[in-house]
Each structure stands twice: as C-alpha cells, then as structure tokens.
C-alpha cells in the first residue's frame, strides 16, 4: 500500500514540475487530467477497508477532475488561435527554480508540524509535502501565467493539492473533503469557465493583460 502511495506521490510531483516547465496549453490540460486520476485513486489507497462509498467517491472525483474539466478546457481552447502560453511573467526556467524553492518550503513547513496522528498516514513523510507542493505549484501558475485558461488550470492544481491534504489529514471525513473540494471546483472552474466564454466574446482573446482596466496606478482606464 505504502509503495503505491509513494508512486502516486512521485507522479504528483512530476506532473507539478511538468506544469511549471511547459508552455503548451494542450500539455497543461493533459497533465491536469493525469493529476485528476492520481488524486482520484488516493481514497482507495488511503482507506484500509474498501467500502463502496470510497469507490464511489474515487470514481466521482476521477470523472470530474480528469474527464469533465479537461473536456471543458479543451472545448474552450478550441476557439483559440494561439495555444501557447506566451511570455509568462516569469520564464519557464525561473518557474522551475521557483518550483524547487516551493519544494523546500513545503518540506520546511511539514517538518515543523507535529504528527497529524490520524490513521498513521502522516507518518508517511511524503504526503504532506506533496500536497503543499501541489498547492504552491497552483499558486505559482496563477501568479506567473498570462492566459485565463492557464490560471484556471493553476487553480485546479491548487485544489488537487488541497484535496490531497484533506485526504491525508482528515481521512475519516472523506465525504466532507469531497464535498468541499467539489463545490470549490464547481464554483471555481465552472463559473470561471463561463466567464472565460464571456471574456473571449468581449476581448477576442483571453490574455488577462486585457483584464487590467480597473486599477489605481498608471494611465486612465
């Protein structure tokens, strides 16, 4: 069981790094879908007994995270001419360096938290850093990328991290975690998806550079 968990976590790390280092929107969506699967199987690995409820939760998560949202993203992107994330605020190399720093920060923070004690999972020293790293990756994407779609994907990654953390920290109340994260995702991604449609209609492209009219600095809007 633990070795499976290890593998999942390593994959999670790798997908995060992949997201930080890539520039194609298509790659983003695919990596996000992969993450969805990884995150989705987690309840199966965490729970000691394989209840039907757990399986249902896992299936639902995978369905939403790795099928529904990637499909939604892909649909949105169909209209784009340019499917690259051009000129992010920080280059890909810098993003990767930031990613490494984020790993450090995640380890530093988890080191300082006493054992969670729930179900002995936290004894697995890798889970918490992986969850935090996913969250940080999502935040880095949100901060450094220009396109609205990428940002939504960043948000998705962050939510994945939170989901993992939830699984690790409060495995008993899986349902609560599920509910929370799904609602959050629904609000975030679904509504943001709608908005990206509108943004596309209003601006012809979805660089959030265009979404900087409301400000108190620089020239008149």
């Amino acid at each position, binding site marked *: 069981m633990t070795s499976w968990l290890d593998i999942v976590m390593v994959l999670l790390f790798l997908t995060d790094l992949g997201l930080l280092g890539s520039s194609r929107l298509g790659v983003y969506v695919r990596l996000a879908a992969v993450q969805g699967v990884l995150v989705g199987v987690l309840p199966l690995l965490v729970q000691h007994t394989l209840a039907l409820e757990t399986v249902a939760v896992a299936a639902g998560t995978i369905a939403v995270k790795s099928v529904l949202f990637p499909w939604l993203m892909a649909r949105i992107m169909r209209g784009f001419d340019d499917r690259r994330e051009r000129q992010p*605020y920080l280059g890909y190399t810098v993003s990767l360096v930031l990613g490494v720093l984020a790993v450090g*920060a995640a380890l*530093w*923070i988890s*080191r*300082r*938290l*006493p054992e969670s004690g729930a179900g002995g999972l936290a004894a697995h020293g890798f889970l918490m850093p992986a969850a935090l790293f996913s969250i940080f990756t999502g*935040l880095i994407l*949100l*901060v*450094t*990328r*220009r396109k609205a779609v990428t*940002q939504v994907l960043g948000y998705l990654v962050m939510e994945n991290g939170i989901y993992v953390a939830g699984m690790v920290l409060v495995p008993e109340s899986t349902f609560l975690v599920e509910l929370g994260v799904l609602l959050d995702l629904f609000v975030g991604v679904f509504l943001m998806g709608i908005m990206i449609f509108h943004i596309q209609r209003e601006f012809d492209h979805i660089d*959030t*550079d265009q*979404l*900087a*009219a*409301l*400000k*108190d*600095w*620089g020239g008149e809007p």
Partner: protein
Amino acid sequence: MSGLLVSLILLLTASALPLAAWRRPALASRLGSWGGAAACGVGLASSIAAFAGSVTASRAWPWVTPVGGAFSLALDPLSAFFLIPMFLVCGLGAVYGRAYLAGDEGRLALGPSWCFYNLLTASMIVVLTASNALLFLVSWEVMTLASFFLVTYDHDRAESRLAGRLYLIAAHIGTAFLVVFVLLGRRYTGTLDMSQWPAAFAGIPAARLGLLFVCLVIGFGTKAGFMPLHVWLPEAHPAAPSHVSAVMSGVMIKTGIYGLLRFGTMLGTPALWWGGLLVAVGLASCVFGILFALAQQDIKRQLAYSSVENMGIVALALGVALVARALQLPTVALLALAAALLHVLNHAVFKSLLFFGAGAIYRATHTRNLDALGGLLKRMPRLGLGLIVGAAAISALPPFNGFVGEFLLYRAAVLGLNSDADAGMILLAAIGGLALTGGLAAACFTRLVGVALLGEPRTPEAAAAVEPAGAFRWPVTILAALCLALGVLGPFLVVRLAPLLSLLSGDPLAKVSGLLAPETGPLTAVTLMALLVLALVVIVAWARHGLLRGRDVREAGTWDCGYARPTARMQYTATSFAQPLVGLFVRLLRSRRRYAIAPGLFPASASLNAETRDVVRERVFTPVFQFVDRWLSFLKWLQSGRVQLYILYIVITLLGLLFWTLRGGA
C-alpha cells in the same frame, strides 16, 4: 443651572424650527433669531448670577454608559466666566444676523443657517459645562461641525469652500490630539468622569504629564488659533457671514483657552518648560499674527489675524502664569491668570464689535477690500464711532478695556522679573514682545479706521454707503459701551475673579484674596487714570471750544501742501500705509508684489499689487501635505490591475505568516 438647561432646550428648539420652516426663509429667520436671542438672554442672566454667586452645580443623565459616557453637566465659576461672553455675543449675533442674512434671502438657504447657528451656541454651552470627557469630545465636534456649515453657508463661492475644508481638516487633526489626551487620561485614571481626573492625575510621572500637556496645547491651540496651528483661522473667519465671524472669533476660539484651563489645571504643578512653551507660542502668535493682520487688505482677514494675535496674548499670559507656578511665585501666577481671563472677556467684546462693524460695512459697500473704502465715518457716523472705540480698545489703549488685561499681564511679568532671575529672559521676552505687539496693533488699527472710515471714499460704492439699520448698529453700540465700562471698571472685576482664581490655582479663597490684596492699589489707580484721561479730554475740549467761540472758523479743501487737484485716489491706501512695516519684516512675511508699468515716455497706467499669504500654510503645511501625498501616491502601484500580482500578495502574506508562526520550530 436650570437657567442653562432652559437655554439649552430653547436653543435646540430654535435650531430645529428654522429647519422645519426652511421653505419660508423669512419665518425661519425670525424663529432662529428670536429663539436664539431669547435663549441667550436666559443663559446670560443665569450665568451672570452663577458667576456672581460662585455657584457650583451639576446634573447628570445616563448616556451611552457602556462606553463610559454620561450626559453630565457641571457649572462652576470657570464655566460661568466663559459662558457670560458666549451668551452675550451669541445673543447679539442672533439679533444682528437676522438683518445681515436678510440680504441673502431667496439666494441662499436661511433655515439651515439658523439651525446651525443655534446648534453652535447650544454645543458651546455643553462644551463649557461638560464634565464627562466623552460628552466633551462629542460637543466639541458638534461645535466644529456647526461652525463648519456656517462657514460654508455660501458655498457657491470657491473661497468659502476652500476655507471650510481647511477648517474641517485642521479641526479634525486638532481633535485627534484631544482624543489622544482623553484616551491617555482614561488610561491613567480609569474613568471618563472629569471630576475624578485631578485626583487621579496626581501620581503620574512628570514625563507623561508633559506628554499630556503637549497634546492639550496642540489640540486646543488649533482651535484657539495659536501660531503655527492657526492656518485655518484667517480663511474660515472671513468666509463666514459676519455674525458668525463675530461668534467664531469672539467666543468659539475661546473654548480652546477654556479647554487649556479646564484640563491644564488637572495636571498639577507644571514644569518650567510648559510655561516656556506657551510663552514661545504666545509670542509667535502675537507678533506674527499682528504683522500678518497689518499686511492684509481684506478687512475681515485682518480681523481674523488679529484674533491670532489676541489669542497669542492669552497664551502669553497663561505661559507667564505657568512659569510663575513652576517657580513658586503665587502672586505672579494669579495676576497672569487674571490677565488671561480678562483678556478673554475683553477680546470677546471688542472683536465681535469689530466683526459686526465690518459686516455692516460689507453690506453697505459690497466690498471687504480696505483699499476700496474710505470716508465712511461721515456716511455712517454712529457705526463709525463704535468702530473707533473698538479699534482703540483692541490696541490696548487706556481708558478702554483692552488695556486692563494687558496691564495685568505686564504687572505680572514685571513682578516676576523683579522677584526671580531664573526665568528672567522668558519674562523679559514676554514684556518686549507684548510692547512690540502693542505698537504694531496700534499701526494695524489706525490703518483700519483711517483707511476705511476717514478721508474720502475711494470708490463710488463707498461714497454711496448710508448708515445701516438699527439691528446692525445696536449690537455695535452696546459692545462699544461695554468696552468703555470694562475699561473703567475692569480693575474691580479682578477682585470678583478671586473665587475663579482660587479654583484654578487650587489655593483656598482666603489665600487668593490675601495675595491679591496688595494689587488693589495699582488697579484702582488704573481706574483713576482712566477717569483722569476722560476728565482731561473734557477739559481740553471745553477749553478749545471756548477759544474758538466767536472766531472765524471756515471750511476748505484739504491743503495738501498746496497741491491743486487732490483726488480721492491720491490718498494713502491701506497697502501703502502698511508698506514700511511690511517691508521691514518682508523676509518673514514673504509678501509678494507684482508691478505692471506701462511702457513709453508718457505711461498711461501702472499697477502694483501686493499680497501676503500665510507663510506657515505655504511654507510648512502645504509642503508637508504634498510630501505625504506624493509619498503615499507612490504606493499606488500596489493596485496595478493585474490579478497575478494580487494573488502574489496573498501568497506572500500566507508564506510570511506561516514562517512567522512556525519560526520557533516544531
């Protein structure tokens, strides 16, 4: 006390009714004016009775008690003393205001104006009697707000708007210091009940008391118009309607002095530097105040700057009193305190007189520019007489009331100088500064009278002026009579101040009376001198009259060294009259002059424009505000419109807090 409450209720009614009748300005004006005057009459009678009988009384009602508030009013000689001029000037102002505002009927809203006028009076009653610090703060701010709305009564004029804003901002910053004082006071004493403060302050270290004192000087000094906190005053007082200017300059700024006395005496024995600070502030205020007054062309601005000067004299007197208390010179302290109190009363009388007069001139000539006036004494002889008396009184000339206060102050300073050398330089500076101020004030007010009232009218408007209606004239006449009466009888008033002085100094009444006893001689002599001067004037006038009787007395044009065609425009103007003195202090005043000299061999026209703006405002406050504004504006890049940066702020905050929380280790 019950008289005061009746007056308070009447005033609140008289402020609500005009607002209700705002659609009928004439009715609103009548309601506001009569109501205000009646309330002030009741209040005046009751506060004179309270002062004469040294009544102390208090009433309290529960009010926002969880916050520490209470609607508690207390009447003691100090309150009563400040209430008397307040009621007098506000009552006369209510009568005068109705005539004054009649000119604006139909153009401006009179209902709100009367509402705020009576609210201002009502709030001053509460300010002067509040014995709960929170109630004091609230009434203090209501007073500020009411006067702010009165200043911006004619807010179509940019000048009024600017003045109002400046006033509100200055008052707010001043109040912030008072809030600090009250909060520190509450911290040290654990209560907002002011009656318990004096005892509770006793055990506090001197450094903290000094801090409290500085808060007081800044907070109340802003209202009183101490230099360099006076910047709002020369803008706001002229912008207001004249009866409001009279109330603001005559009595409202005195609430600052009241506050200093009320709270300052709670702090116990002062350190020497407290007095030194007040003397310095007072000297700066009186010398600069009067110099700026001298440089103004606007008659009401001149009067406003003169208020700065007079508040400076009061500050000087308070400073001398503090110095004397620090050096254990009880008689000197008493005399200086008495000087401050008398000057407060006197200034209320003559400054409101002058503002009433200036307002009447404005209504008659439609200008406040001194250089456009002239020859008004012939056209409005009765008003003019009142103004000349006021000018002589404010120049502190015997036998008028201004002199009595200054005499006491000199007396105190000289006595202090003769009995102790430690603070000699401070006291000598006070004497010299006061003498210089006296000379400059004489210059300032001969200029006012000489240019506005005497000579020939400089403009057709001034030539067309006529004696104003009774409502304009009577307040001036009454106040002029008071100037003379207080000047002659003022010395006797000092004896009546004994209970108040005992309250302020903390000494028992018998001791105060004992200390004051040796001073009755000189004070009586002052009265005698005043009477002697009056008698001599009558005798010399009678002699002159006798000499001229039956002789050839003719009228002709002004000789003017034989110059053939004197015109009114050849007269000395206010600007040229003040030029030598302004020129002497030009480095301090920073007057600006603009010439326009027509070219050619036979130039047809030329012009010269001299203007003196407020140095403190232009050189200190404006740059400071601009600096703060620029520095803060620089931070506006924070809101750059980019959502990525916004999320970055969240991340940084989160990481920072996590680091801060976990820094200690697991």
